Each structure stands twice: as C-alpha cells, then as structure tokens.
C-alpha cells in the first residue's frame, strides 16, 4: 500500500482502534481492580488504625501514622528486615557466582546437552513447600543424609536447623533451589553471543581466562542485570521454604519480613500493624519495580 494511503487509513482507523484497545484491556483491569486495587485500599485504611482481629472492627480507632512509627522502632521488625536483607544478599550473590560457573562448564561439556539441562533445572521447577519438606528431611540431625555423610568422613553431626546454623541452612536450601535459574539464563545468554570477538581473540592468541574476563562476561552484562533484579525481587519475598524448615526460628534467626507480617496478622491478630508492615513492603517493591524498568531500558 502506498504510504500516503496508509496514513489516511490510519487516521480513520485510529478512533475505533482506541475503543478496541480499551475493550481489550477491560477484563484484565476488572480482575486487577478487584484483587489488587481494592485490597490495597482496604489495607491502607486499616494501616492507619489500631484494628485487632480479637477485639473486632468496632473497637478500631484511627491512629494516624503511629503503626508506621512503631514499625521503625520495633526490634522484631528491624530484625526481620535485617534477616531479609542478609538472606537476599547472601543467596543472590552465591547463586550468581555458582550459576555462572556451572553454566560456563556446561557450555563446554559436550554430549547429553538436553538431558543435563533438564535435570539441572528440576529444583527450580519444584514448589518451595516441597523443597522445604525435602530439605527438612535432609538437614535432620538424627537421621538426615547430610549428617550421615559427615559422620562417614569423621566430621561432627551438627544440629543444622538449630541456633547458629539455621540461617546458613536456610540460605543453602534457597541456593540449591534457585541456582538453576541463573544457569539457565547464562546458558541462553552464552548461546546468543556474537562470534566475531572470540575469533579475533583467538587470532590474537588470547587465553581462555582472558577471553572470559574481557569478552564473555562483559557481553553477558545485560543477562546478569536481569538475573540480579529477578532473583533479588524473589529472594526478598521468599517465605515458603523457610516456613517449612524453621518457621522463622530459632529465636527469630530466620524470621524474614514476610513471615513477620504473617505472624503479626494471623498469630497476634494485629491487623492494623500488619497492614502498615505490608504497605512498607509495597512501597519498597514499587521503588524496586521502577528501578528494574529503568535498568532494563538502559540495558537494551
């Protein structure tokens, strides 16, 4: 079609397209309104009250920002923030390093490609609850496989989910489950790298490590960015495996922020306070989403 004809047609089409565009998003918007916007509004309102489920809604009073002020001083909240941040930092960085190494190795290893890859990603396909169940059995101090192996080689048999060790055990479980995500994305990134720089480097006589650090890894930067942001966001909200493994204990050592909110809401019935904690999380996630979008736009 000639260009001028197309532009005339486009302007004629434009109005009906606009209506169609709204009609097409409408059903999705209805769901989002009902399940996200409405609850978020209710939650915001409740966060400004001292609502407690045991005393009921009639006893609730408007207390302004007191819940938010309390959150910033509450040692349990501050502890849960610290646990969440360190949990995220430890697991995401370990997953990134370990996953990249495994991906680089798998990229070199020939044969059984599909079988190997399918096997490797199984942990990440598994429900976090099942991961928690499996690892609770493996970590068990009395009849767990891990301690049996340790004893076999003459090492002590620690109480893995007990004081002092619970945090690292929980982190290791998370790393086991989610390193495959990094492997998968790095492998895909590796297979889409351009060939020319490597050919040039080979001609120049560059060693493997040289081409790895000066070509491969820099070229993979956008992939690393995606992995970093994705994993961070999901580690920040991870609660399910921890729920099964330790329920936040011992002595709040593994009490991540999500579990803390759950406990305030459904064990202590502090609905107002829990809503304020939820809104703090929502705002942090909104900031994170914004940064994520920015980073993606810069990356591509």
């Amino acid at each position, binding site marked *: *079609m000639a260009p001028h004809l*197309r532009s005339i047609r486009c302007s004629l089409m*434009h109005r*009906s397209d606009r209506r169609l*565009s709204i009609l097409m998003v409408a059903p*999705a918007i209805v*769901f*989002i309104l*009902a*399940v*996200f916007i409405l*609850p978020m509004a*209710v*939650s915001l309102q*409740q966060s400004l009250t001292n609502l407690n489920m045991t005393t009921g809604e009639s006893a609730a009073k408007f207390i302004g920002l007191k819940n938010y002020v309390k959150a910033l001083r509450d040692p349990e909240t501050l502890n849960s923030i610290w646990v969440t941040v360190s949990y995220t930092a430890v697991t995401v960085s370990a997953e990134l390093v370990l996953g990249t190494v*495994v991906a680089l*190795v798998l990229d*070199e*290893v020939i044969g059984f490609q*599909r079988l190997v*890859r*399918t*096997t490797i*990603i*199984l942990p990440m*396909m598994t*429900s976090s*609850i*099942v991961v928690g*169940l*499996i690892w609770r*059995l*493996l970590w068990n101090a*009395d*009849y767990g*496989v891990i301690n*049996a192996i340790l004893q076999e080689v003459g090492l002590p048999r620690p109480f893995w989910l007990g004081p002092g060790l619970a945090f690292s055990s929980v982190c290791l479980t998370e790393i086991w489950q989610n390193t495959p995500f990094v492997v998968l*994305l790095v492998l*895909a990134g590796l297979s*889409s790298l351009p*060939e020319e720089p490597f050919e040039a480097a*080979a001609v120049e006589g560059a060693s*493997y490590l040289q081409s*790895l650090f000066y070509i491969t890894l820099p070229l993979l930067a956008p*992939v690393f960015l995606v992995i970093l942001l994705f994993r961070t966001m999901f580690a*920040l*909200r991870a*609660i*399910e495996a921890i*729920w099964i493994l330790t329920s936040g204990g011992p002595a709040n050592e593994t009490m991540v922020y999500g579990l803390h909110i759950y406990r305030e809401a459904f064990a202590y019935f502090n*609905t107002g306070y829990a809503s304020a904690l*939820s809104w703090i*999380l*929502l705002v942090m*996630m*909104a900031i*994170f*989403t914004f940064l994520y979008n920015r980073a*993606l736009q810069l990356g*591509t």
Partner: protein
Amino acid sequence: MQSQVVRPFPKSAQLSRRPITIERLKKVSIRLLLWLIALMAILVSIIPFIWILLTSFKTPTDVFQYPPRWIFQPTLDNYRVIFFGKGMNFSLAFENSAVVTGASTAISVALGSLASYSLARLPLPGKRPFSYFVLFTRMLPTIALMIPLYILLTQARLFDTRLGLIIVYTAFNIPLVIWLLRGFFADFPLELEECAMIDGASRFGAFLRITLPATAPGLAAAAVFSAFWIWNDFILAFLFTQDKAVTLIVLASRFMEEEGVKWGQVGAASVIAVLPIFLFSILIQGYLTHGLLAGSIKG
C-alpha cells in the same frame, strides 16, 4: 542452541591425532575436570529428589534408621494412606489443584493476551502508567495483600471455594501473561495484520485470525509458566482454603504441623505434587528456556 564460537578447549576429535605432550595432557585433564564439575552439579540437583522418592516407599522403621538406608523392602503403604486413608483427602486435593490450575491458566492466558496485545499494539490511553502498574503487580509479594484479600473473600462467601481461588490466581497471573506476551506481539510484523484488514477483516478479526495463531509459541510458554506457578503456589491457597478447596501443596505442608512427622507420607505427597511438573518439564525441555528468556529480556 550451540553457537560456533572458537572453543577455548578443543573437542576430543581435534585432540585425537596429536602426539601425547604436556600441553595435550593438560587439556585432557581440564576436560576431565569440567566433566567432574558437571557431574557434581547433576548429582547435587537430583539426589534430594531421589532421597524423597526412596523415603516415600519406606516404612516408618526404615525412615528412622541410622545410618540412613539406600536399600530396603519397599512398600506402597504411604501412597495408599494419603489417597485412601482416614482423614486424608489427597484425591480431593489433587482434583482441586488440577481444576484450579487449569481454569486459572486458561482464563488468565485468554484475558492476558487481549490486554497484552492492546498494550503492545493499540493506541491505549495511559499506556505507560498501566504497563508500570502491571509490572508492579507482577512483583507484588502475595503476603502484602493477604489480610484484605482474606476479608474480602470471606465477605463474598468465596472463602474455601474453588471459584474464589480461581479468581485470585487469575488476577495474580494476568500481569505475568501480559508481560511474557508483550515481546511476542510487538515483534509480530504489522504488515501481515494490515493485509488481513485490506481483505476485509476488522482489527480484532485480524488479531484473532492472524496474530494470535502466529504467537502460539508465546501463548504456550505463558500457559506453561502460569500453570507451574499456580500448581506450586502455597500462600494464597493456604490462606483462602480450609477443607473443601484445599490444594495438594497446602495439604503437603500440613504434615509439618503434626507431632512426629510421618516422613513416608510426606515423601509420597511430595512425589505426587512434583511428578506432573517434572513429566511436563521433560516433555517440553529446551522450549522453556526460550519462553523464559524472551519474556524476561524483551520486556
């Protein structure tokens, strides 16, 4: 998948004709080391699964043996108990999981693809803020909305019903679908749609007959990811069900609340919860990588 990049370590075919030198020995040992690391990675990935599979066939006495036994007299009792035992409703839970996963996936992929097309292709007013909001809801931790959702569902008499779960899962999943499909729709050549429209199809007709079938791989990837996520999810199903609409994962989690965990039954429940996902993963293999990458990077 495999690119033709110059390999830092020559493959065995290239190695075979050269005489044995220190150089060659070094390369062979590096190859060996790589294989060893790969093997380790595979073992670490699958041994926990093998262990829970073995446990699911153990009697209580075998479970508590120390040192743990790899060889024992297998029994199907645990599976029998969780499916037909008294007070156990794994059959119902399996049915609930299947129905809720199927329905939520179908509805959210249908509605999500409409919205995604509108976002990628049509002059939707307020496009930018809306796409931000979609991404935001995608990132939203479930836990942040649980209290008001719990209250709303109870008031709407949807607590502990499949319908309630389907509505919640559909809503939580629509943003994922929109996000995964946007890249596919944006990449589809506009000319093909215009051809159909010149032939008399409406814009929506062109979308239904031309664009949608052409993006089938994207739709399939979105459906698979959605189904996996819904099947595996715990928090929403845990909070919004009690007996009637309880899902497999929720029921499995309840073993931990009891005194003296029945590990054999935990094993059987885990195997049943994981098996459909694994079989499906094996069926679609490398396909998953493409969908995931296309969705997460194209954004």
